[in-house]
């Protein structure tokens, strides 16, 4: 080795190749960030849509541009769906920005430890436009190692799988909610008089009474003598004795407070497929009617 000999074996300038490789790595990193952000954003959209469906806030059910969608065979979007989509877009933008903010060389190093430090050093050397023999040797070294590197490591298969399963579960839950109509009764502050409101109010009162005892007279009012009610209803439940060979059915007549009777009646049913039984049903009905009049 001599100093002159070194000049004779001047290596090719690999700076541009390193810059091109770094640009490629940046593209791959952006793709990975896009995949993660898209999946996570889909989860956010589904979760938000599910939450909108479960809470049942009336404001979120308002249909958007109904006149436009009336002529179309598809239902128009409502405010809740729009809110879910906006939440998903926000999540996508936020995650993509955060993921691409970290230096790409470091992300790539995490996925490919064999190029750790060499790639970072080559990046800094290329940025500083160094072209001395050691820098050229480093560039060649890094380019060689990058041939064996892969951007697949930028994607965590387990993490992506879990996200997909989660998204699938959320979508199933959203469909279930849309079909069954689960409503946890949460409403906006401005609404009043709904079922949810009353239930919440009753629960609140019950909780309050269980906590503090109130004066009974205050709750029930002044004590008064009551001779008779304004409405007298008589209810009776009859039963016919079983056995002893009497197979005929016996139904009690029901009477209201005014003494007006309601005749017991048994409904007849004839299956349309068995029209020939209609006469039999009518005969049974007449017999039953005859039994009731005997009482």
């Amino acid at each position, binding site marked *: 080795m001599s100093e002159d*000999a*070194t000049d004779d*074996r001047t290596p090719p300038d690999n700076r541009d190749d390193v810059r091109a490789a770094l640009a490629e790595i940046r593209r791959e990193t952006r793709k990975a960030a896009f995949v993660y952000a898209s999946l996570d954003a889909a989860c956010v959209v589904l979760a938000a849509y599910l939450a909108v469906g479960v809470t049942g806030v009336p404001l979120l059910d308002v249909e958007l541009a109904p006149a436009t969608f009336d002529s179309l065979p598809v239902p128009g979007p409502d405010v809740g769906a729009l809110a879910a989509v906006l939440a998903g877009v926000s999540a996508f933008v936020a995650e993509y920005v955060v993921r691409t903010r970290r230096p790409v060389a470091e992300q790539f190093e995490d996925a490919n430890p064999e190029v750790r*430090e060499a790639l970072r050093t080559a990046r800094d050397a290329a940025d500083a436009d160094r072209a001395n*023999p050691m820098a050229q040797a480093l560039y060649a070294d890094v380019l060689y190692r990058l041939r064996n590197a892969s951007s697949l490591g930028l994607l965590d298969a387990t993490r992506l799988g879990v996200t997909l399963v989660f998204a699938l579960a959320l979508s199933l839950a959203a469909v279930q909610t849309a079909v069954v109509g689960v409503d946890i009764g949460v409403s906006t502050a401005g609404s009043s008089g709904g079922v949810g409101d009353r239930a919440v109010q009753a629960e609140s009162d019950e909780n309050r009474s269980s906590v503090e005892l109130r004066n009974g007279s205050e709750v029930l009012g002044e004590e008064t003598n009551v001779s008779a009610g304004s409405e007298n209803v008589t209810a009776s439940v009859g039963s016919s004795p079983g056995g002893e060979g009497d197979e005929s059915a016996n139904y009690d007549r029901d009477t209201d407070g005014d003494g007006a009777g309601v005749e017991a009646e048994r409904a007849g049913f004839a299956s349309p497929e068995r029209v020939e039984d209609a006469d039999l049903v009518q005969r049974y009905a007449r017999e039953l009617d005859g039994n009731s009049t005997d009482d």
Partner: protein
Amino acid sequence: MTERNPSIDDVTNRIQAIRSEIRRRIVGQERVVDHVLACLLCDGNALLESTPGLGKTLLVRTLAEVTDLSFSRIQNTPDLMPSDVIGTEMVRETDAGRTFTFEKGPVFANLVLSDEINRATPKTQSALLEAMEEGQVTAGNETYDLPEPFFVLATQNPIDQEGTYPLPEAQSDRFLLKVVVDYPPEAAEREIVDRYTRDVDASVPVEKRVSTGELRQMQRLTHQVPIADDLRDLAVGVVRDTRTADDLEYGASPRASMSLVRAAKARALIEGRTHVSAADVTAMAPPVLRHRVVVDFRAEREGLTPDDVIQTLVEDR
């Protein structure tokens, strides 16, 4: 193997050959050999500290033989004068009459072994250290350049031994590395005994592995080893931390930052890499910094050494 510049591979092969050749004589001191070699590649000077009998002088002699450098030795004693080191003006009788001629001292060599430098007086130490820093000496009205490469390898006994003049901190800062030579492991010591007691002539021959010109080329390549910005920041950060560390009375200078980066580059080249890694910086921090910091009284009373404090600072980074 990667497709590397052939000249770079030549350099790494030469370095491995030098290592192997030195290890034929020096047993059980691989780390010391690597540090001294790093010093040589950085065109720096090294301070070796150990108790006598650990092969410091043999190491330097072997290094001179393997690298084909001119070698001289200065045995420091309390009565050694600066002129004994750098040379002196002599009056000579010639045909033209009496003339003053400069008689060069032992400092005029590529590789100077200054044995037991802490036994010399501070005045003599300063003369040598000035030569190290300037690469030239002045005698009378004349300035003389020292040969290139110029490499001083000074040895010193631990300063708690009697009859020593510890190097001032400002002077010791001029050594790139302070290498502590420890006792070899038991197996290595057995090997030393076997190797040097078999024959009456126990010298182990070594071959020249690199010429002076090649060594200069290797030094140039060492300076060109690329280092990433964050690793440079790591080196600077460790050095700056020595200035604020609770256990240190005062820390290292910016010269230490430069030395740490240079030493890390040399280690990378010795290891056959084309770039500096974080391990290079952390591995070279103790030898670069241990003679540049002073442990304060409280920490010293608790038994802390500069190496302990530096190691803590490196681990905290």
